């Protein structure tokens, strides 16, 4: 244990370098952000605020269709298609089955199905975007905190009569906060993929429904 305690200063010093890098990143990124970056958007991907129906659908217009909720079979299908637990293979089967039984209004009902899935998946996507915005702000304040801790650590270490216990305490705190910051950064990288995954799903379903319109 003592050995570990002895190691803590170099480790903290290494962390300092890392934290300094992070602090620098947090200083420079928002500067660039002022012109290019959105503070609500922590992802590398280009932010697409909403998916436009025209980008993924070349079927009839979704404007003025009325509610897709009033047709119970349509509403049930929308719910199943919008749920991410429904695989795309299952989605195809569900659409096939619905189409076979859709009757004379087949085309209009299929367009309603797509309108419903479009609305639901865009809603899911909005929630993910809001979540990402919250995380972006939390990371920005963590970076500020790490920068302040780093400053305190550096100041104490510079004093010849510093308290080694206090220095270790500051070093450990810096170590821990940096680790949390990095873990969160990694989760953000994964979370940033989610809007794209939803877009992919929406496009795939659009394609399946559109193929049934003819």
């Amino acid at each position, binding site marked *: 244990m003592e050995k570990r305690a002895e190691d803590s200063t170099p480790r903290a010093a290494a962390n300092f370098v890392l934290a300094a890098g992070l602090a620098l990143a947090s200083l420079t990124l928002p500067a660039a952000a002022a012109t290019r970056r959105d503070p609500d958007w922590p992802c590398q991907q280009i932010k697409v605020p909403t998916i*436009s*129906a*025209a*980008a*993924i*659908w*070349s079927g009839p217009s979704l404007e003025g269709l009325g509610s897709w909720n009033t047709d119970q079979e349509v509403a049930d299908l929308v719910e199943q298609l919008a749920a991410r637990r429904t695989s795309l293979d299952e989605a195809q089967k569900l659409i096939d089955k619905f189409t076979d039984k859709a009757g004379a209004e087949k085309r209009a009902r299929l367009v309603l199905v797509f309108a419903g899935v479009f609305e639901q998946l865009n809603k899911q996507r909005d929630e993910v975007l809001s979540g990402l915005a919250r995380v972006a702000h939390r990371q920005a304040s963590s970076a500020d905190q790490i920068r302040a801790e780093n400053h305190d650590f550096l100041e104490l270490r510079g004093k010849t009569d510093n308290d080694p216990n206090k220095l270790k305490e500051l070093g450990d705190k810096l170590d821990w906060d940096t680790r949390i910051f990095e873990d969160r950064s990694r989760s953000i990288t994964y979370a940033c993929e989610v809007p*794209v995954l939803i*877009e*992919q799903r929406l*496009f*795939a379903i659009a*394609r399946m429904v*559109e193929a049934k319109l003819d």
Partner: protein
Amino acid sequence: MQAELIRRRGIRRRSLLLLASSALALGGASPSLAYTAYVTNERDNTVSVVDLDKMQTVKTISVGQRPRGIVISPDGKFLYVCAGDDDIVQIIETKSQEVVGDLPSGPDPELLALSKTGDLLYLSNENDALVTIIDLKERKALAQIPVGVEPEGMGVSPDGKVVVNTSETTNMAHFIDTDKREVVANVLVDSRPRYAEWKSDGSEVWVSAEVGGTVSVIDPVKHDVTSKITFSVPGLRSEAIQPVGIRFTKDGKIAFVALGPANRVAVVNAQTHEVEKYLLVGQRVWQLAFTPDQKYLISTNGVSNDISVIDVANLKVIKSIQVGSFPWGVAISPE
């Protein structure tokens, strides 16, 4: 591997027989030849091998990092793939479907084009503002030509005398004399030019501008932009229309332009320069390639991780085929 090849050939032979017999039954309609499409997947560092007879991915080849530009030798024996983050061009033997060597490409190769004779490779080095010429037999670089910043598109003229290179940041099409190996003319186009394609009669070069949202039609003798093609899809923001890959039919009548995040391929009358139709393909459509008989046009769709097969005669998307992650470039076997 050998067993798999034999099995695949067996399947191919059986399916050809089947096709031949069904063609006979249909009164002699000619069977389509089995072509293979090779698709670079930028994200997962692979090349997907797609059997266009079965319309499915039959194999995945591991390659270097960030594969993008891909071409196939005229005899169909070798593929050349830009592995941009590894700073090399890899050679894949199509028979064994394995990487058999590499070429000294210079840094960050992105797009490449073969000379008409098939013995030289022209490629753009994105980070170094250079076009490198490689002798394929000797596997060595013959020359490096300075061009604009972030060079990308490479189009070889039908007579092989001129290569047009586009530079993304300088916003120019650079005309390179292949004998002199120097830039002989620069033509300003719209923002972030991505791709240059010649009409088969050499009368026009079309250059797509991803950010500008246009295709510039250039007179290759006068080096003037003679017209600009714009695109518009109802309900879609103009920023979502980002032209990239271009292909002409052999008769020079139709051009196809991939429109990036508009998820569509535009069908353009190549004589009047009017857009006649938009085909919804897949997400972030990037590059295009015809089958040699021009029956099908293949598009790579980066975000939906698939390729679309367009029936050229009927101008219809008939199939999407899943490939790897972020498909970028595509080359199709000559037989």
